[in-house]
C-alpha cells in the first residue's frame, strides 16, 4: 500500500466516461429502481463533469428538455422524473442544472412564479420547510428552499427571518446542527445549516464557531477519511459535507488535506471510473461528485473551483444575486 500511494492520481478520463455512460449503457434493474433520483443524479453528474473540465460532454438540449419534462403541473415544482411529484430535493437539482447550463431563461415568468409559490408554500410557521406537502421536516429542506430561492434571486425577508430562527434552534452542545431541534449533530445537517446561513450572510447565528470547527475537524479518522458523526466509519461523501462546512467557517486547514486526498483517490474504481463511499465498494455518481468536489475545495488535481455554499462551480455562482438585496 505504501509504495502505491505515490502513484495514485485522479483518473479524470475514466470518471468522465463513467458519468457520460450512466444514461446510455445497458440499463440494469437498479437503473430503473432509481428513477426517483434521476434529477439529482443529473445534477451530480453534470457538476462532476464541469469540475473535470468536461461540461460539454452531455448534450445541453437533451438535459434541458429532460428537466422541463419533470415540471409538476399540479404543485409547480420539479419532480425527479416525468410523472413523479414535485419535491424540494429535485426542485433544487433542476434549478442548479439550469443555472449551471446558463439556461435559467428557459423558465418563463409563469414557471418562475409557480416555483416560488411552491417553495414558499412549504414553509411552516416555525420557519422550517417540509419537503413536500406531506410534512417531512428536516434542515435539509431549509437549505434546498433557500438555495433555490437564492439562485432564482427571489429571497424575501418574510422567508428568511423564520428560517434563521429555526436553524438557531437546531444547534447542539457539540456545536453542530441536527435535522430538527433536539436531533443529534450530523455533518450533512451541519452543511445544510451553514450553507443556508452563508447564503443569508448570517454566520453570526452560530453560537461558537471554534467549537463547531473542532467538531468538524474531529470527523477525520486515522486513514484520512471523514465520518459524519463520532465513532462512525469514514465515507467519501463527507469529504464534501465536512470540508465545505470547514471552508464556510474559514477553517479549511483544520484537517489534513494530503491524507484526505489519499482516502478519496483510494476509493476510485481504477478500471471503470467512478468513486465509491470507501475503498473497494461499488461506485455511484453521488460519491463521484462529492469526492471530486472535495478534491476541488482542497485545490488538488487542477480541477475547476467549486463554491462551498452552493456546491456548484464558482464561475457560475459568482453571477448570483447576493442577499440582502440592495435594490
Amino acid at each position, binding site marked *: 500500500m505504501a509504495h502505491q500511494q505515490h502513484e495514485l492520481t485522479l483518473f479524470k478520463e475514466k470518471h468522465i466516461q463513467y458519468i457520460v455512460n450512466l444514461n446510455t449503457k445497458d440499463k440494469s434493474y437498479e437503473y430503473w429502481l432509481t428513477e426517483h*433520483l434521476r434529477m439529482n443524479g443529473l445534477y451530480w453528474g453534470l457538476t462532476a463533469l464541469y469540475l473535470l473540465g468536461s461540461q460539454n460532454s452531455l448534450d445541453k438540449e437533451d438535459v434541458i428538455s429532460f428537466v422541463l419534462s419533470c415540471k409538476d403541473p399540479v404543485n409547480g415544482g420539479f419532480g425527479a422524473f416525468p410523472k413523479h411529484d414535485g419535491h424540494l430535493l429535485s426542485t433544487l437539482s433542476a434549478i442548479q442544472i439550469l443555472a449551471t447550463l446558463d439556461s435559467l431563461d428557459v423558465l418563463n415568468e409563469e414557471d418562475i412564479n409557480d416555483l416560488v409559490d411552491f417553495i414558499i408554500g412549504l414553509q411552516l410557521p416555525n420557519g422550517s420547510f417540509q419537503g413536500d406537502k406531506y410534512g417531512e421536516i428536516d434542515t435539509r429542506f431549509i437549505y434546498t428552499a433557500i438555495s433555490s430561492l437564492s439562485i432564482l434571486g427571489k429571497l424575501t425577508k418574510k422567508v428568511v427571518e423564520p428560517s434563521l430562527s429555526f436553524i438557531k434552534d437546531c444547534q447542539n452542545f457539540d456545536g453542530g446542527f441536527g435535522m430538527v431541534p433536539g436531533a443529534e449533530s450530523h455533518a450533512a445537517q451541519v452543511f445544510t445549516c451553514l450553507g443556508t446561513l452563508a447564503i443569508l450572510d448570517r454566520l453570526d447565528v452560530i453560537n461558537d464557531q471554534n467549537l463547531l470547527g473542532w467538531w468538524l475537524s474531529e470527523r477525520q479518522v486515522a486513514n484520512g477519511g471523514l465520518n459524519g458523526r463520532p465513532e462512525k466509519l469514514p465515507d467519501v461523501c463527507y469529504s464534501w459535507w465536512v470540508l465545505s462546512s470547514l471552508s464556510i467557517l474559514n477553517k479549511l486547514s483544520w484537517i489534513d488535506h494530503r491524507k484526505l486526498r489519499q482516502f478519496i483517490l483510494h476509493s476510485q474504481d481504477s478500471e471503470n471510473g467512478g468513486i465509491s463511499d470507501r475503498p473497494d465498494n461499488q461506485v455511484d455518481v453521488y460519491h463521484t461528485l462529492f469526492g471530486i468536489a472535495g478534491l476541488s475545495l482542497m485545490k488538488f488535481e487542477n480541477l475547476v473551483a467549486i463554491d462551498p455554499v452552493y456546491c456548484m462551480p464558482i464561475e457560475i455562482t459568482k453571477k448570483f444575486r447576493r442577499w440582502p438585496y440592495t435594490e
Partner: protein
Amino acid sequence: MHGIKRERLSEEARRNKKLRDRARIRNYKTLNAMVLVRRDKRDYSEDAFRLSTKLLDLNPEYYTIWNYRREIFLNGLFQDPGDAAKGETAVSNDMIPAILERELKFLIVLLKRFPKCYWIWNHRMWCLENNPKPKLNNELAIVNKILSLDSRNFHGWHYRRYIIGLIESSNGSKSSTNSGINASGTELSLSEFNYTTELINLNFSNFSALHNRSKLIIKIFKKTNLDNQYKEAVLKTNPEFENKLEFLTKELDYFKNAIYTDPDDQSVWLYLRWLLCSNDLLNLSMDDNDNNNDNNNSNNNNNKLKIIKLLLLQIKDINELNDLEKSDDINSLDNKWCLKIIIEIQMTLFDKFIDLLKTNDTNNSDYLTSLITNFNQNLTTLIQIDPLRSNRYLDLQRIYNKRFETL
C-alpha cells in the same frame, strides 16, 4: 450507495445477471405503468391500493407512490361508503384506526429490510397523525426494539423524540384543565433521562444517548426552576437534580469511571466537555433562589469561585489519568483526548474567568502564568501527537497568545 462491495463479474455472471434483469425489469416497468395510469385516472380503489403495495414493496424509495397511497387513503379507503353515496366528503369512517394499524404492519416489514429509508419513516408519521386513536405506546415499544438492535440509529432516535412529543402534547391537552404540574408530560422527560442512563450503563460509548441526555438535562432543570411541585416529584427518584452543582459533581463522578475504562472514547470526552465548558450547566446563578436575591453579585462571585475550583480539580484528575496512560504507552506518548479536554477546560477558564484568576487571592499571581505555560505546552504536544489537526492547535496558540499579551 453505501456499504456495498465492488464486484468484478465474470463474462458469464454478467450475462446471467442481464438475463435475470430482463425479466425483473419487464415486471417492474409493467407494474409501474399500471400504477401511474390509475393515478392519472384518480383511481382510489382497493385494486389501486393493492398495486401500490406491490410496487412499494419492490421500491420503497419511490416517493411519488407513497404520495399516491396517501391520496388513496384520503379519497378512497377512509371514505365511508354511505357518505360517498350522499356526496359528502367528510372523513368519518370508524374503520380508519384499523386501516392505519394494518398500514403500520406493512411498514414494519419494509423497515426491517430498509431501515434507513426516509420515506418509510415519514409515511409512518403520517399514519399516526391521521389516526384519531394512535397507539403511541406501541410505537414507543417498537422504537425501543429498534434502538436495542442499533443504539445509534439516526432514524430511530428521531422517531423516538417525535413519539415522545406526541405523547406529551396529547397528555398536555388532556390535563389542561388541571392546575399545577403537567404530571405525565414532565415525568416523560425524566423517564427519557433515565432511559439514556440505562443505555449508557450498557455501553457508555453511545453518543446518540449522550446527546439526548444533554437535551433532557436542560429541559428538566428549566422545569424544576419554574415549578416547585414538579421539582419535588423529580427529587423523589432523581435527587441529583437538587441543583446544578450537585448534578455536575455526580455526573462527573459517573463518567470519569467511563474514561478510565476507555480513555480513547471520544463520545464520553465530548460529553464531559459539554458538562465542564458550556454555559448550560456552568451558569449556576440560573439556579432557583438566586434570582431575586439582593446580593446577587457576591452570590455570582461565590458561584464562579466554586466553578473555578471544580475545573482546576478536573484538570488535575485528567492529568493523573494522562500520566497513567503515558506510563502504559510503549513510546510514553501523552493521551490525545486527555490533552484535548484539558485545553478545552483551560480555554474555558481563560474565556470566562480570567479576571478572577488574575485577582483572586486563593491563587497567587503565578498561577495564571503557569496555567498559560501549561496550555502552550499542551498545544505543542498535541501538534505532535495529533498531526491531522495540527493547524487547529497552531491557530489556537496564535489566538490565545495574542490575548495573553494584553493581560
